[in-house]
């Protein structure tokens, strides 16, 4: 009871009042990566009954109890389990065999078939390699074969049998027992130890009913198939789980977590062509590319997953010089709603290739991307802090400086009450270039802190340590683009900052290479914008009251930074011609609207799924 209590990280404190072992308001944890089965060993009825009530396994020495004893104790265990409201299958039976027992295969098969034994442990001297080899190579396969022949098909499933207390936390409407065999071993349910680590995203608290964790493309297809059988439930697709909008988790629905598909492979050294799994993190991508002298602009934080960002845009620290992440995409592999796996590129499934770059989440589960990455030497990395008592004046000056700044430099600004923090990357390892491009920013307002270093791009992506995703509640985030920082935009922004309705006001600069691409070349259309604004608050109504005036001086939105689920936001994200084109493709590829939980583009035909 003490061990189980300390593993229950859903609670803040745990107590257990026993005669021999006690806990009083102890801190549970650390959270387990997986349920560690608790096996009891003993040959008396009291232990067998205890195992039936509480344990995940029971071990007994066959020599000690004999076959008859085993049958009797098994019965005791079964009764105790049933009396405790458990399924007797929850407790795995393990017998320890003497060396001589390993010779009689039919007797061993009988242990499995007649006594429900599913673990056979051979007592063997450390020097007796021959016996061990024979047991592994000949006896074990023969037992499996014999048992499979004698038992009904599927009886020897590797599907985990969950404890009754874990099953009690299941959510309605999910066919837990029909999770495909290949996904069952890695799937996480609300009662599992690993649930605490997969339920929430960076900012959003989640409580999904089932998290599927495919390890291969075929398993992703199988997970999508399972999701098709659950059209009545929310469906989140998770790569890194960092997304500000929080759409990669939900309440009571399904999550397909592709974090396991995280391979990073160089396909063509000369062409700088790299294949990256959707589940990789940008910090790992940066680390993998650094030895080649390469980098791929992503966002501003290395913990973000590849899949979410690379289907939405990718506004990062090298954007002005090298463009968006999606501008480097040459091909993407996606699992579509019907389970087929397709490759989209400039020559295959071209319409999907267009849509995947800015609206990918509506069309399937991206599993791998092929990017042409950039040659990037060490970069200049600046963190400047300013006094900014007049946010409007600071913003206008910032806008003017950016307009005159060469595209090597991509600054991100965080503006607060009285202070401004600027993070800027200069794609140059020449101190003279770095200083000359940063100097105009340093003159905007009194500097209170400055740090400028020359570092690899990977060092900037790995600046912050990996943190757990323990978001709680609903994130409230708003997004907009603007070509320039007009006096109206600046003054509405200043009002917003002073209101206290927002605790986070960030402007990322775009333009430059981003604007070199035609607006209709990708589903991301905001090519003429020079500034992307992201604002976060804790109360949506209050934030909107102050954000609406800012929005009137801006246009568009970036999906990754918008949490508002109002249908109007779709029209902000996609201009009418783009939206029509997306809706036609949606009707073709996902007519029943399986992928509708992340800024839904409705199919052009009226095939909406039931809203129960």
């Amino acid at each position, binding site marked *: 009871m003490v061990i189980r209590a*300390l593993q229950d990280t859903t609670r803040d404190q745990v107590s257990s009042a026993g005669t021999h072992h006690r806990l*009083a308001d*102890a801190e549970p944890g*650390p959270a387990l990566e997986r349920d560690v089965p608790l096996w009891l060993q003993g040959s008396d009825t009291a232990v067998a009954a205890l195992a039936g009530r509480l344990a995940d396994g029971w071990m007994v020495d066959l020599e000690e109890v004999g076959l008859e004893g085993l049958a009797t104790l098994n019965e005791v265990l079964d009764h105790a389990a049933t009396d405790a409201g458990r399924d007797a299958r929850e407790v795995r039976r393990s017998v320890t065999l003497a060396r001589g027992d390993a010779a009689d295969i039919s007797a061993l098969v009988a242990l499995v078939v007649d006594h429900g034994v599913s673990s056979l442990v051979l007592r063997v001297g450390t020097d007796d390699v021959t016996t061990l080899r024979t047991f592994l190579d000949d006896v074990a396969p023969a037992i499996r074969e014999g048992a499979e022949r004698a038992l009904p098909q599927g009886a020897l499933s590797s599907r985990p049998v969950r404890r009754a207390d874990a099953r009690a936390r299941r959510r309605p409407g999910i066919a837990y027992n029909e999770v495909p065999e290949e996904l069952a071993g890695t799937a996480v349910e609300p009662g599992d130890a690993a649930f605490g680590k997969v339920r929430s995203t960076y900012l959003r608290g989640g409580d999904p009913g089932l998290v599927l964790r495919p390890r291969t493309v075929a398993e992703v297809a199988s997970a999508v198939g399972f999701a098709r059988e659950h059209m009545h439930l929310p469906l989140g697709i998770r790569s890194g789980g960092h997304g500000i909008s929080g759409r990669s988790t939900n309440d009571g629905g399904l999550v397909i977590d592709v974090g396991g598909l995280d391979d990073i492979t160089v396909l063509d050294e000369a062409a700088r062509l790299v294949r990256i799994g959707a589940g990789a993190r940008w910090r790992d991508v940066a680390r993998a590319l650094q030895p080649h002298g390469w980098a791929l602009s992503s966002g501003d934080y290395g913990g973000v997953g590849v899949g979410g960002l690379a289907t939405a845009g990718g506004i990062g620290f090298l954007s002005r010089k090298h463009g968006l992440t999606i501008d480097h995409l040459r091909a993407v592999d996606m699992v579509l709603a019907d389970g087929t796996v397709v490759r989209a590129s400039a020559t295959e499934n071209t319409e999907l290739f267009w849509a995947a770059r800015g609206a990918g989440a509506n069309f399937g589960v991206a599993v791998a991307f092929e990017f042409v990455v950039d040659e990037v030497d060490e970069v200049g990395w600046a963190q400047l802090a300013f006094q900014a008592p007049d946010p409007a004046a600071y913003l206008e000056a910032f806008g003017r400086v950016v307009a005159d700044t060469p595209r090597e430099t991509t600054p991100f600004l965080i503006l607060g009450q009285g202070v401004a923090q600027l993070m800027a990357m200069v794609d140059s390892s020449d101190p003279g270039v770095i200083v000359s491009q940063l100097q105009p920013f340093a003159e905007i307002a009194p500097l209170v802190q400055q740090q400028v270093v020359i570092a690899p791009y990977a060092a900037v992506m790995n600046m912050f340590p990996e943190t757990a995703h323990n978001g709680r509640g609903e994130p409230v985030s708003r997004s907009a683009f603007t070509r320039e920082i007009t006096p109206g935009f600046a003054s509405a922004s200043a009002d917003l900052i002073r209101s206290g309705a927002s605790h986070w006001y960030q402007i990322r600069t775009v333009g430059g290479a981003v604007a070199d691409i035609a607006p209709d070349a990708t589903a991301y259309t905001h090519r003429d914008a020079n500034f992307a604004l992201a604002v976060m608050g804790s109360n949506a109504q209050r934030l909107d009251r102050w954000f609406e005036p800012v929005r009137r001086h801006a246009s568009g939105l970036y999906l990754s930074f918008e949490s508002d689920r109002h249908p109007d936001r779709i029209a902000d994200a996609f201009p009418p011609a783009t939206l029509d084109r997306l809706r036609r493709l949606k009707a073709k590829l996902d007519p029943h609207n399986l992928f509708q939980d992340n800024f839904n583009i409705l199919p052009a035909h009226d095939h909406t799924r039931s809203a129960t």
Partner: protein
Amino acid sequence: MNTGTNSGTNTGASTDVTIDYGHDLLFGTFVTPTNHPVHQAVEQAVVADRAGLDLVTFQDHPYVARFHDTSTLLAYAAARTERIHLSANVTNLPLRPPAVLARAIATLDLLSGGRIELGIGAGAFWDGVAGMGGPRRGPGESIEALEEAIAIIRGVWNTGESGALSVRGQHYDVRGAKRGPAPAHPVGIWVGAYKPRILRLVGRAADGWLPSIQYLQKGLPELAEMNSHIDESAHAAGREPRDIRRFLNIGGQFAAQGRGFLQGPPSQWAEELAEVALTYGTSGFILASDDTALTQTFAAEVAPAVRELVADARGTGRHE
């Protein structure tokens, strides 16, 4: 790590009364055993090992869920390092039964090639201890329990003695326990202590003393007072004061300009630590660090400079 001693003489640089027990100097780090990121503490041990430090230590708070279990962490870190010695700083006795602790330490010392030391304390944070099912002990009781535990631990390690081990104490009642295994090297028992009564226990029974600078209420000069409790008790027990190595857990940051004790350039740190060594006989400096650069600078720029300053003052300088 109970390395040989110099023939120390009291040749402090200041005019105050100074103590120098003449030990060679040891330098180490004090790493937070955080379990997130899961390998961070181990990586910091590897950093300390590669930087050439003598010692890496971890707090032991078994009631804190965001920390690794320190005994398990020590085992994992020992397997990942090559040369450095490792210790808890300090082991929480009330949650670690002493006879089993002695075997665990001996096992790890054998597996690591003689690189484990036993930092140990009487216990603290009694709500946490009791919450985990451990005993809640008053100050006198906890010291009494520690003394019993040290007798048990030494008894388990002492395979030279024939016959089973029995220690009949108020807190631990060991009857007829098998002895052994003996550790690979003489494992130091280093006690975290501040008050006179437990300092006297250090003088009687321990191999080292492991205080933290931030718990010295009157600052560094308090070390002199505490030393005298240890020294007197050592004499009374027929031991030499220098049988007990004096450590100090320290904290600091490097800065271009000096701003205070251990807040300045490495040369300033070296002078300050050399003075502590020569004034209070401190011969082991353990820096709280979860930061690779801090650890590396401490190892590369502070440790050799302190050694040189102290050797010069002792008149045993080797200029090579």
